[in-house]
């Protein structure tokens, strides 16, 4: 077990290194001078002095290898440098905004799992039945609605027409817990519904597959109660594939969070990212993407370990 975990951790670390290297080399392989490129706005180019300043600031005047080593060293220390727009420390901005993004993702994921796993199980157990046909049709429709469209429509219905919930904004939990939670509802619902469509699909397919296995027949033949057969011999077996797919889909989930935060004016990582992209603040963009990728890899590492706990065959191989 320990060997399995350390092997997976080594693989995750290697993946991080590769990603860091790719993000680093993007700036190197861009045709022309990166400093000039980043400072150019529209057709006009920046002053020679500003370009020279930026080059020195980002270390672009150093040899490539020195740049690379410095970049990796600083990244490992979680020092992402300073923004080229306001010279503020990127790490402290991320530390401030990351928890807000994670809050939406965690709330959305919980919502998605609570909704989609029972619904997917019920649909899979009675595939072809009325409930299955209805939920699968709704699911197919929801799958086709991009997160930002769903968010926009939610604002229109729940905030503008019905007036139940605020259209967006953010208040710290410490300042006003009730208002904070109220404002959390729509963003996490938007993120969660999107994830729920994927989880539903996967749960249904997985339950449908597990249901046909011989060991389920054995469990029924043993005289186990139906509920127990479903829980222990169908759902428990289906859980591994479900969480693995959820883990892989988290990339898309993290991406749709960018748009959802933007729609609801939620000051998480994505507000930072979008304005940084608009202002071509490459160090900030780079730092946000590294952070998100690290989270993604971290979550998948946890999921790998979880599924090996669920299925002995994974750790025995």
């Amino acid at each position, binding site marked *: 077990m320990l060997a399995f975990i350390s092997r997976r951790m080594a693989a995750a670390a290697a993946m991080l290194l590769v990603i860091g290297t790719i993000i680093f080399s993007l700036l190197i392989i861009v045709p022309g001078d990166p400093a000039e490129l980043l400072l150019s706005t529209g057709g006009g180019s920046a002053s020679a002095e500003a370009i020279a300043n930026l080059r020195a600031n980002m270390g672009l005047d150093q040899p490539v290898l020195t740049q690379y080593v410095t970049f990796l060293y600083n990244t490992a220390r979680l020092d992402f440098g300073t923004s080229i727009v306001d010279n503020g420390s990127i790490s402290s901005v991320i530390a401030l905004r990351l928890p807000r993004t994670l809050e939406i993702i965690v709330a959305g994921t919980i919502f998605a799992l609570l909704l989609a796993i029972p619904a997917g199980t019920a649909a899979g157990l009675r595939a072809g039945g009325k409930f299955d046909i209805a939920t699968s049709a709704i699911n197919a429709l929801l799958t086709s609605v991009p997160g930002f469209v769903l968010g*926009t429509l939610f604002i229109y219905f729940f905030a503008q027409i019905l007036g139940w919930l605020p259209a967006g904004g953010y208040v710290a939990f410490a300042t006003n817990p009730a208002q904070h939670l109220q404002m959390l509802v729509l963003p996490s619902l938007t993120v969660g519904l999107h994830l729920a469509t994927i989880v539903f699909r996967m749960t249904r397919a997985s339950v449908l597959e597990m249901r046909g296995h011989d060991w389920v027949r054995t469990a029924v033949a043993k005289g186990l109660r139906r509920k127990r057969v479903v829980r222990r011999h169908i759902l428990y077996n289906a859980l591994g594939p479900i969480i693995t797919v959820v883990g892989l889909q988290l990339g898309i989930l993290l991406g749709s969070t960018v748009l959802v935060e933007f729609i609801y004016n939620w000051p998480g990582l994505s507000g930072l990212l979008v304005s940084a992209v608009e202002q071509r603040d490459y160090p900030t963009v780079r730092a946000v993407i590294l952070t998100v990728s690290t989270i993604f890899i971290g979550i998948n590492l946890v999921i790998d370990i979880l599924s090996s706990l669920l299925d002995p065959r994974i750790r025995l191989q």
Partner: protein
Amino acid sequence: MMSARNFPKRMLLPSVLLAALIIIPFSAPLITAEDPIKIAVRYRLAAPDLQHWLGRDEFGRDRLARVLHGGQVSLTVAFVATTIAFIIGTFFGLIGAYFRGPSEFITSRLSDIVLCFPPILLALLVVTLFGPGAGTLVAVLSVLYFPTFARITFSEALRVTSLDFVEASRALGTPSRRIVLGTILPNIAGPLSVQYSLTAAAAITIESGLSFLGLGVVPPAPSWGQMIRGARQFMNQDPLGIMIPCAALVLTIYAINFFCDRLRDTLDPKGASGSGMDEVSKPLALADAPAIRDPNVVAVINKLRLETTRFGTPAAVIEDVSLTLRANECTALVGESGSGKSLSSLALMGLLPGAIRQASGTLQLRRKTGEVVDLGFLDARTLENIRGNDIAMIFQEPMTSLNPIHKISDQMIEAIQAHRPMSKSDARAHAIQLLKRVGMNDAERRIDSYPDQMSGGMRQRVMIGMALTCEPRLLIADEPTTALDVTIQAEIIELLQTLRQDQGNGLSLLFITHNLGVVADIADRVAVMYSGQIVEEGPANQILRDPHHPYTRALIESMPSSHEGLHSTDGDRLPAISGTPPLPSARPSGCAFRDRCPIAMPTCAEIRPVLYPSADGERAVRCLRAPEAPAGLMKNHQTEAA
């Protein structure tokens, strides 16, 4: 290529819908002459009128023209990017699969890396460097999606290259290029086309998302994402402004997904029926079962008829099957696969697949309490109490019959606790006892293994041990040795024999097999099944020595027996039975076996034989030419016909 004639019906609607949604935006000049970027501030947010069917947006631009032209932009970006990704990815995938080596590493690892970047974030990274615009979008989307195509092509092509005909053409010296393009590519077109549609839908989502953020298509060129962005501020006064582009976007993505789902179903049709846990259909007709008087009788199957609706109209898979199972007796149910022997036993367990229902007949069981119940009409809870307690079953495939992710101990303990209120540690001790009883060495340690750590023979012992949990009165063994090695087979048979003798309460064993050699070893009575009917039944020694039905005779003759010195006397030739059993929906008139019968007469096509009992009532046979058949039957019929 798919011709119009064999175009699947289920693909028609999605194909038409998708084609319409792609063609309509590109026929914009035919629909409206308005300019999508001409600003007329005086008419901002004007309501729809005859000239401007969908009204005007916040700058007074014609909304219909903007939706159509915006669609052109979104679709072009998505399909151009997907096509580029498809071409590059397929190329890398094919090279990787055909030549293996380092190219294999690149194609399989590359997609792992790209998958770590949330797609929209990678797009934003590139936009930061190159600035927004349709060209940047196409480039980003192609880079994002080509590894997925490479991976799919790679794994699919790997599957195809190992197929015999590819190996064969490689051995014949066909040039690589021709094998790849002519043989492999057409064979992996299915999964690739599904991935193509999926990718196109994802590309549209990302394009519109970026445009919504203002980082995609550059204004004033219209795009759906931008229209939603623009209309957002005015959603109160003008809800139409967000509804129209949202509807266009959702409808397009839905059409692609719909197309993709149907395509996947058409390419890879998978039945939704499983063997494990279907809803069991209730029997059709109520029949009064005759009372079981003999206390030695454990179970009675009476005139059982099972029907399937799989072929449209109900067809009988089991017909007129009657069996009496007694205590201290082993009954062997023998027949080819598909003869209905397993279904008969599953009916006793209430485990029939959902597509099969009990049409008539009765299944009765004497419970351990002495109470006689009709298995077809019990509520689910009572049936759960009977399974594993009064009747237990051992299945054919020990490799798949145990849940691979639970320990043996957990699977045995839950079986014990299902019927006996017992603490976990007591149940565990009982489970270890059972494992010792079925001859497992070192049971204390092995009980904590997972099924995958055991051999097939060991797993079958576990299954048998589990079946003995509650000392059932009826034990059904459905081909328990078929999947095992010959030496292990003998051990398992021996084990079953010992268990029968040991068990105090008079175990009745229903042994299902296609192997007559085993029958001679273990069975007291034999019932031979053919095409859903019992064709011969009686004491095992009588039937094996002197079969009366031509099918039983053929089965015995085709047995490579080492028991009775028949071996090698006539050159090891197996007189196999020619032909195959008929499908339930296509049984011939008269006798079901007549097409394959060496002694069939014309009458056999006209009279449907029933089971004719022998004079002493010990055995019965379903054949017009058997000694038990009423003597006058054939002659009378012939005169009638004449």
